[in-house]
């Protein structure tokens, strides 16, 4: 028979099928693209956030003898060509040699002290290293003076006739180290050279990742000596003419070739193969340069390996959600195909009776479904390309699976219902009792699901090799719950029936009796409705767990409403300026520093803070800190220590001065320091003063409202810009990561899609059973039941199934995170803090499940209302035909 004609006649169910196939194809092809894009973005984000010194390939060399010294740029260029030539093709594809790339080579000295200045006294603790960049002409601009010129020789006091070379400094170094243009420095105590400051330069683009490799040329680094005095270090820029003078027995000279990796070219898909390529490259470069002492290195391998480990954990959740969505969408599509089959059953039966072969019937059914499915799949597949993201195999396979499922299910359904002679069964016979074989099978499924859940909790899903059995556990749990629901559904209803029997009105009794005594309702709607609700409730619970953890992490990392943490001391004046920032209500200063714990040289963390004041500003926040330790005498330093240190009666702590502290209690967790503390000592704010040293404030915990990290930082006006962050900013940072953003979005899409599917499943089920229900009700109406009561009866008949399945789905959705929780690592979405607790926030899931149930029951009511508009005679006729 003509499939187009059939499609035209049964346009409503066919349209439902088309919409379902289209939306499922779009979701199944689109979501992985979105997820993959997020994975790629996450990796790109990670690479961009990481210093180029870690992400790029570096070949370093320290010339051991004067013979190894490279004196000409051409020598560097020759070596450079070698390093590029050794790149494996797949690695070459992600490196960047084009114009404007970071590819360059340099020569720098390290720890070169200023031995003296010509004409004036040098400041102590100054180090000016010498540096040459192969592409300095394209990277810097000389703002004052003349660029470094050719080297020469000069006589200075104590050193007649030493090499002289020209250098340029950045403005910051020139000012801070008091080295204006014209200054002549004597560098190095042995084999000194004279360096003449001829120019001040600035980078053409200071934000370029190029400068990660040459950070030492742009910023003065300050190091605190054990004596408490500062050392200042800067690397100056010199010309190629000076290459010969850079070497010297006492100078630490290093050469470096930089092969930049384009972060945009590295993605989650090629990361694994890149790890191998990088390893091969390192081996080749090591062999090539082994004689001359070249040392290839990169942090890329570690970075990518770490990322892939985290990604596997992240993928687990998305795979579970995606699998749930796929299963439910296939189920609803199967239900829609069943609806189409129901509608075309008469035509196909007639065809069969009139001599149609099974092949012809299957051909007609499949033709109709294919006529709808194929364009819908193609449209969904095409629309998925509007979703930004790379194309992975699942993008092609997903829609194909959907289309094939619809067609194969249709073929199987038609074949099954028309294979045997038509009148092999009789409706007036009693229902089949469940066979022992089927009961055994169901019990096995339930047992396997429970065992699987137990194993999953113990082993976890995120081992290096994903266990397919464990991946199936959530599915098995859902199927087990559905089977139990189908099997046990009549029992609570029979109780209700027993109660309503005594009432005078017949409708509740009839409705519940119909529901309770009917043959176990079709398993398919339950198998759709239950997982749909379970997965969407699961998604909602995971989502709220993630939100809570993200917020918790933000608080933990910030330590208060806002925090300023500086590498240099925060003076009392600066503290006062911060206190005066609008919105700030309280500031608690603290000193946080690496300390030596005990006598064994163990390095730990010391925190000197007034815990009472800190507790006061944390009141009303999710954070808490322990009570301050009490001291017996004024000179004693009481301390809270991390659990492993509590056994000591006293503890030697090397801070600015050595102090002996008395452990008075345990500090198991502390904001900013983390949750699982080791070698941590928390002492009163004035602990250093009690032992005769001074307290160096470097951390401020700030309470206030409407705070802005940048304004706080500006108000502090410290010599080195501090880290200044508020809870909101930290939370934004966590949630703005591509993975966190995507997982929240995916959770939302999956929840919405599954809820819609659940509703559709109920409605399709209503339509499929409409004729049979119509017949039953029309008989009741002939006995004198008014139409209004008949409508109520439909709702009462359907509602128990919806309500019970919804409850089972809700319960399963709430239990799943608890059952699977330890097996799924969500820390990657929550700022690397393990998501341990899934707060049972009943409101969202209950609203979700309640909403589905109410809308489904309303749908049943509306359907009943529409069905009963037909004349009684026609209903009866429909029932009989």
């Amino acid at each position: 028979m003509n499939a187009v004609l059939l499609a035209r006649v049964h346009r409503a169910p066919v349209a439902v099928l088309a919409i379902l196939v289209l939306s499922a194809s779009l979701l199944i092809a689109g979501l992985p693209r979105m997820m993959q894009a997020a994975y790629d973005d996450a990796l790109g984000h990670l690479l961009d956030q990481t210093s180029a010194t870690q992400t790029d390939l570096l070949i370093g060399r320290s010339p051991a003898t004067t013979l190894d010294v490279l004196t000409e740029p051409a020598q560097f260029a020759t070596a450079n060509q070698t390093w590029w030539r050794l790149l494996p093709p797949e690695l070459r594809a992600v490196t960047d040699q084009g114009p404007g790339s970071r590819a360059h080579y340099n020569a720098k000295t390290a720890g070169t002290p200023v031995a003296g200045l010509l004409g004036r006294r040098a400041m102590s603790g100054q180090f000016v290293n010498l540096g040459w960049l192969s592409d300095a002409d394209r990277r810097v601009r000389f703002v004052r003076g003349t660029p470094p010129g050719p080297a020469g020789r000069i006589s200075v006091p104590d050193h007649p006739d030493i090499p002289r070379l020209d250098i340029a400094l950045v403005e910051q170094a020139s000012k801070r180290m008091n080295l204006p243009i014209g200054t002549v420095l004597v560098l190095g105590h042995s084999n000194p050279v004279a360096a003449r400051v001829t120019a001040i330069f600035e980078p053409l683009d200071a934000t370029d990742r190029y400068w990660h490799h040459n950070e030492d040329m742009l910023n003065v680094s300050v190091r605190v000596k054990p004596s408490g005095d500062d050392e200042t270090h800067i690397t100056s820029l010199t010309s190629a003419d000076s290459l010969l003078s850079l070497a010297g027995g006492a100078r630490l000279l290093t050469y470096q070739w930089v092969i930049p990796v384009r972060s945009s070219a590295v993605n989650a898909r090629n990361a694994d193969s890149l790890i191998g390529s990088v390893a091969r490259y390192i081996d080749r470069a090591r062999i090539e340069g082994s004689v001359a002492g070249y040392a290839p290195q990169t942090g890329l391998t570690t970075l990518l390996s770490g990322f892939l480990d985290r990604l596997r954990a992240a993928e687990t959740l998305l795979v579970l959600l995606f699998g749930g969505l796929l299963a439910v969408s296939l189920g609803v599509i199967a239900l829609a195909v069943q609806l189409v089959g129901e509608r075309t059953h008469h035509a196909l039966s007639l065809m069969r009776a009139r001599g149609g072969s099974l092949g012809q019937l299957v051909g007609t059914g499949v033709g109709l479904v294919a006529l709808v499915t194929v364009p819908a799949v193609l449209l969904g597949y095409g629309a998925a390309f509007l979703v930004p993201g790379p194309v992975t195999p699942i993008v092609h396979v997903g829609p194909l699976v959907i289309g094939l499922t619809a067609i194969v299910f249709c073929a199987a359904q038609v074949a099954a219902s028309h294979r045997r002679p038509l009148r092999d069964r009789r409706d007036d016979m009693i229902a089949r009792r469940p066979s022992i074989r089927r009961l055994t099978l169901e019990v096995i499924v339930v047992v396997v699901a429970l065992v699987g859940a137990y194993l999953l909790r113990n082993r976890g899903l995120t081992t290096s090799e994903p266990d397919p059995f464990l991946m199936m556990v959530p599915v098995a749990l859902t199927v087990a719950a559905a089977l139990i629901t189908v099997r046990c559904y009549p029992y609570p209803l029979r109780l209700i029936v027993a109660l309503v029997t005594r009432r005078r009105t017949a409708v509740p009794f009839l409705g519940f009796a119909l529901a309770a005594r009917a043959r176990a309702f079709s398993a398919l709607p339950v198998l759709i409705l239950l997982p749909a609700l379970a997965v969407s409730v699961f998604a909602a619970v995971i989502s709220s767990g993630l939100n809570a953890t993200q917020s918790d992490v933000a608080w933990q990392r910030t330590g208060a409403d806002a925090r300023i943490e500086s590498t240099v001391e925060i003076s009392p004046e600066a503290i006062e300026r911060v206190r005066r920032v609008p919105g700030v209500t309280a500031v608690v200063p603290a000193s946080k520093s690496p300390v030596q714990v005990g006598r064994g040289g163990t390095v730990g963390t010391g925190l000197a803070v007034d815990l009472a004041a800190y507790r006061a500003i944390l009141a009303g926040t999710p954070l808490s800190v322990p009570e301050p330790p009490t001291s017996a005498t004024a000179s004693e330093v009481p301390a809270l220590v991390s659990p492993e240190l509590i056994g000591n009666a006293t503890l030697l702590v090397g801070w600015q001065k050595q102090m002996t502290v008395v452990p008075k209690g345990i500090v198991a967790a502390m904001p900013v320091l983390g949750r699982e503390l080791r070698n941590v000592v928390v002492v009163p704010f004035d602990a250093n003063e009690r032992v005769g040293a001074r307290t160096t404030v470097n951390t401020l915990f700030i309470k206030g409202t409407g705070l802005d990290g940048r304004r706080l930082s500006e108000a502090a006006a410290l010599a080195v810009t501090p880290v200044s962050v508020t809870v909101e900013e930290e939370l934004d940072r966590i949630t703005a990561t591509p993975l966190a953003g995507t997982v929240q979005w995916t959770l939302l899409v999956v929840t919405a899609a599954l809820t819609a599917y659940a509703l559709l499943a109920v409605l399709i089920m209503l339509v499929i059973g409409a004729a049979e229900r119509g017949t039953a009700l029309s008989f009741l109406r002939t006995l004198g039941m008014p139409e209004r009561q008949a409508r109520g009866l439909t709702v009462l008949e359907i509602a128990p199934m919806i309500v019970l399945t919804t409850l089972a789905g809700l319960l399963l959705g709430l239990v799943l995170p608890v059952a699977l929780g330890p097996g799924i690592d969500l820390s990657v979405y929550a700022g690397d803090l393990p998501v341990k607790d899934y707060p049972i926030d009943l409101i969202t899931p209950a609203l979700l499940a309640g909403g589905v149930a109410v809308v489904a029951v309303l749908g049943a009511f509306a359907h009943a209302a529409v069905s009963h508009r037909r004349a009684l005679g026609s209903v009866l006729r429909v029932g009989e035909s």
Partner: protein
Amino acid sequence: MTETPTLSELEAQAVRGRPAFGETAHILCDNLVRIFKTEGVEVVALQGLDLLIEKGELIAIVGASGSGKSTLLNVLSGLDVPTAGLARVAGTDLLSMTAKDRLRYRRETVGFIWQQTARNLLPYLTGRENVVLPMRLAGNRAQKSRAGELLDLLGVGDCADRRPGEMSGGEQQRVAIAVALANSPEVILADEPTGELDSDTSEQVFAALRSANRALGVTAVIVTHDDLVSEQVDRTVGIRDGRTSSETLRRASEDGGTIAEEYAVLDRVGRLQLPRDFTSALNMERRVRLELERDHIGVWPEGSEDE
């Protein structure tokens, strides 16, 4: 020297000259049994039914609701498979048919008409398209002309381009007869074809069946409750409790009227169903006494004395 034949040889010799039961019949049911079974419950719809129908006959099958007549028709139409016994239609054994045989049987041997007019036709096809459908399913070249001829023969030529919704109930049933006849079957089976129709329309539909029977030589079996139909066929077979219980034969009388004679059916093993009102009237229960007379068999209630 001549050998003395054994007893079995003598029996075989005696039977050899006689035709087997129903050998020449177009439709043969011999001890036909159909049991519907589900776990723990059995319903025996046919309990050893015997029936012989000759080629070209037009017969009616009557019986109370639940007597098994629809089951019989479903078995004959190949829609159902009997549990035991023998059922043969136009030389096809219905019990040993493969799926392929069953398909060919439906295509070439039988045509079927249901009671519900809506069930016989696809509502979105025109009358002609409905008639052409079985031909196309059978792989015959779609013969629009044959469809037209059939519709004309049955008096519904004007329904060729109308859809079932635009036809009366009687027209729909006549188009359904045309559909059943589309592939020139040897037998047509009709399950209460006039059940939903008024008497005038019933008359038209029955006339259409009769003209198909006469003009095309098709054997027609009609299950009916309609006296109008059952009283106009040559033979009416009554079914009770899954067995043929009576037959009514009609022949034209010399004065132009119709003479109907009702017979009880004697099956192959000699069983006879006595009409219930007969047994009730004489209070016959469980046992009766039989007496062989010269030209008949007498049946007396238990305990009665010979005259």
